[in-house]
């Protein structure tokens, strides 16, 4: 092979680089399907062939050349070698491609809000709509024929050439650099964040790539403002949790004194009491215990919300746990003359759950049912099996029920329905919110059906065997 100075200038390889190498491996872009053999054979038989194609330079950039093959014969008329001339027609090709897309797409692309840039395989811009020119700060037509890399901050240019060549190997519609921060460079040297989507465009002049470019400065600003706001909110929320946790603890300490002394007094330990004294001490005790219950529920809610509650799973008898809870609410049921009717489907007994938490769920539902049911009403606890290794626990009553429009708020903190119910029935407004969170922790579901004035049915679905997190 002979390699002249012109070839060196055009392709970037010196004669020493080139000699001994196959010309195909040197300057034919990888994966390029030229019918080189055909053109060479044509040159050998007819003496001449010519075609236009893309060629690769040493620096990895593509150019368009017109290739002329001319056979050179020896004295006996045999073809001795082929003289290959390559003329750089890149700029010409750009102008031709520009003319082609101008006529076909310009009007269409001027009507979109996005900046659109089209480039051919050599990476030269063949079309930039006026939105693109304005976005990057160029005059009308100024970008035509320049390498697309002028629109990139210099630190990205080298990588971009390689990506661009790769894109023509496998052209498809996609967004550029998904998950990466991309920046555009204005003519005045300033940068701005962009979002770019790429799509190939098949034309008579070969494959072009169309990029839609969007300035996302505004969106980025909003995103980072939101992010900061979120961090701030998260911090405030944690501070609130810490505050509530320590307040709950601080509130309980003096309350223990109140409850303890009232209990001690009302038991008559320090001396005999008259009936009124006994009654008032009973009132202090009840109020104190109610307040303690409220504080405990609040602490539980805060702990669950902060993800600080671990379930302690154990195997236990469901009927036994239900019996224990029923015993706990027995005094309230007796005082209102309400019978609690418990039925458990045959074959359901042992379950693996957090027993104290399960009892808390049932206790909350059952004490609500008793609270909101009139004297001599009916309250039921029913356990049935549900497919998927689960069971349904239903607590039903024929009490005051819940209005349909109130059901949505039922499981939210501090949403006791009618104002005044709290005073009448002594609820905390935390019980159902806490109950729902406890059910969630067990991977269960909770729901309610109710008709106002006729009663309510709270149903909880829980797994029979809760799979623990390995500890």
């Amino acid at each position, binding site marked *: 092979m002979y390699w002249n100075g012109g070839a060196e200038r055009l392709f970037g390889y010196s004669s020493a680089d080139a000699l001994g190498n196959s010309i195909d491996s040197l300057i034919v872009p990888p994966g390029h399907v030229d019918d080189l053999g055909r053109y060479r054979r044509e040159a050998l038989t007819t003496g001449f062939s010519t075609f236009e194609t893309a060629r690769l330079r040493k620096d990895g950039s593509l150019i368009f050349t017109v290739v002329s093959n001319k056979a050179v014969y020896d004295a006996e008329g045999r073809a001795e070698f082929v003289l290959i001339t390559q003329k750089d027609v890149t700029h010409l090709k750009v102008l031709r491609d520009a003319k082609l897309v101008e006529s076909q797409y310009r009007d269409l692309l001027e009507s979109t809000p996005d900046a659109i840039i089209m480039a051919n395989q050599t990476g030269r811009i063949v079309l930039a709509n006026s939105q693109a020119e304005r976005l990057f700060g160029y005059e009308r037509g100024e970008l035509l024929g320049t390498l697309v890399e002028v629109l990139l901050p210099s630190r990205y240019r080298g990588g971009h050439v390689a990506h661009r060549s790769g894109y023509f190997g496998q052209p498809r519609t996609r967004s550029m650099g998904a998950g990466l921060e991309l920046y555009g460079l204005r003519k005045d040297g300033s940068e701005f964040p962009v979002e770019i989507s790429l799509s190939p465009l098949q034309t008579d002049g070969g494959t072009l790539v169309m990029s839609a470019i969007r300035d996302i400065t505004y969106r980025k600003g909003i995103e980072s403002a939101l992010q900061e706001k979120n961090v701030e909110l998260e911090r405030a929320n944690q501070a609130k949790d810490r505050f509530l946790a320590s307040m709950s603890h601080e509130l309980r300490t003096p309350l*223990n004194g109140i409850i303890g002394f009232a209990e001690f007094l009302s038991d008559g330990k320090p001396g005999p009491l008259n009936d009124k004294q006994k009654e008032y001490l009973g009132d202090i005790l009840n109020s104190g215990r109610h307040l303690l219950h409220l504080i405990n529920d609040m602490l539980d809610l805060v702990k669950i919300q902060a993800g600080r509650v671990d379930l302690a799973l154990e195997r236990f008898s469901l009927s036994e746990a239900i019996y224990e809870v029923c015993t706990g609410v027995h005094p309230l049921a007796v005082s209102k003359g309400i019978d609690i009717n418990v039925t458990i489907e045959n074959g359901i007994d042992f379950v693996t759950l957090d027993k104290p938490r399960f009892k808390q769920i049932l206790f909350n539902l059952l004490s609500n049912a008793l609270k909101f049911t009139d004297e001599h009403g009916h309250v039921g606890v029913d356990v049935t099996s549900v497919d998927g290794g689960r069971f349904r626990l239903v607590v039903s009553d024929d009490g005051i029920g819940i209005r349909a429009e109130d059901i949505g708020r039922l499981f939210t903190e501090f949403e006791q329905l009618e104002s005044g119910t709290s005073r009448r029935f002594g609820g905390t407004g935390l019980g159902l919110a806490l109950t729902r969170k406890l059910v969630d922790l067990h991977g269960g579901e909770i729901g309610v059906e109710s008709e106002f004035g006729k009663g309510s049915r709270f149903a909880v679905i829980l797994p029979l065997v809760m799979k623990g997190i390995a500890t």
Partner: protein
Amino acid sequence: MNAARILIVDDNKTNLKLASDVLAFGGYEILNASDAESAQQIIETSRPDLILMDIGLPGMDGLTFTRLLKADEATRHIVIVALTASAMKGDDVRAREAGCDGYITKPIDTRTFPAAVAGYLPVRA
């Protein structure tokens, strides 16, 4: 009557008084201290049979104080029962590790407290 002598160490005055009075009505001889330093003096002069130790004391905390008492030949025989807040998970384990002979969770139940304490008292010859 030779009543058992119980030292209660708690920095909360009300809790201290409640526990003291409940036990005093149970027939025990009660000593009070609000921190480790004053408790140490009482132990040296009065030799209690049992100490009810609040864990969260100001200054030297109850567990450190327990370790010191259990490391001392003169005081290691004294039964130490930790008073732990029920809300604080793991306090029971830490109390055992520090050398406490048992623990009672706060808030105390005035009806069961004297019996719970009695369960920890050494049987007298």
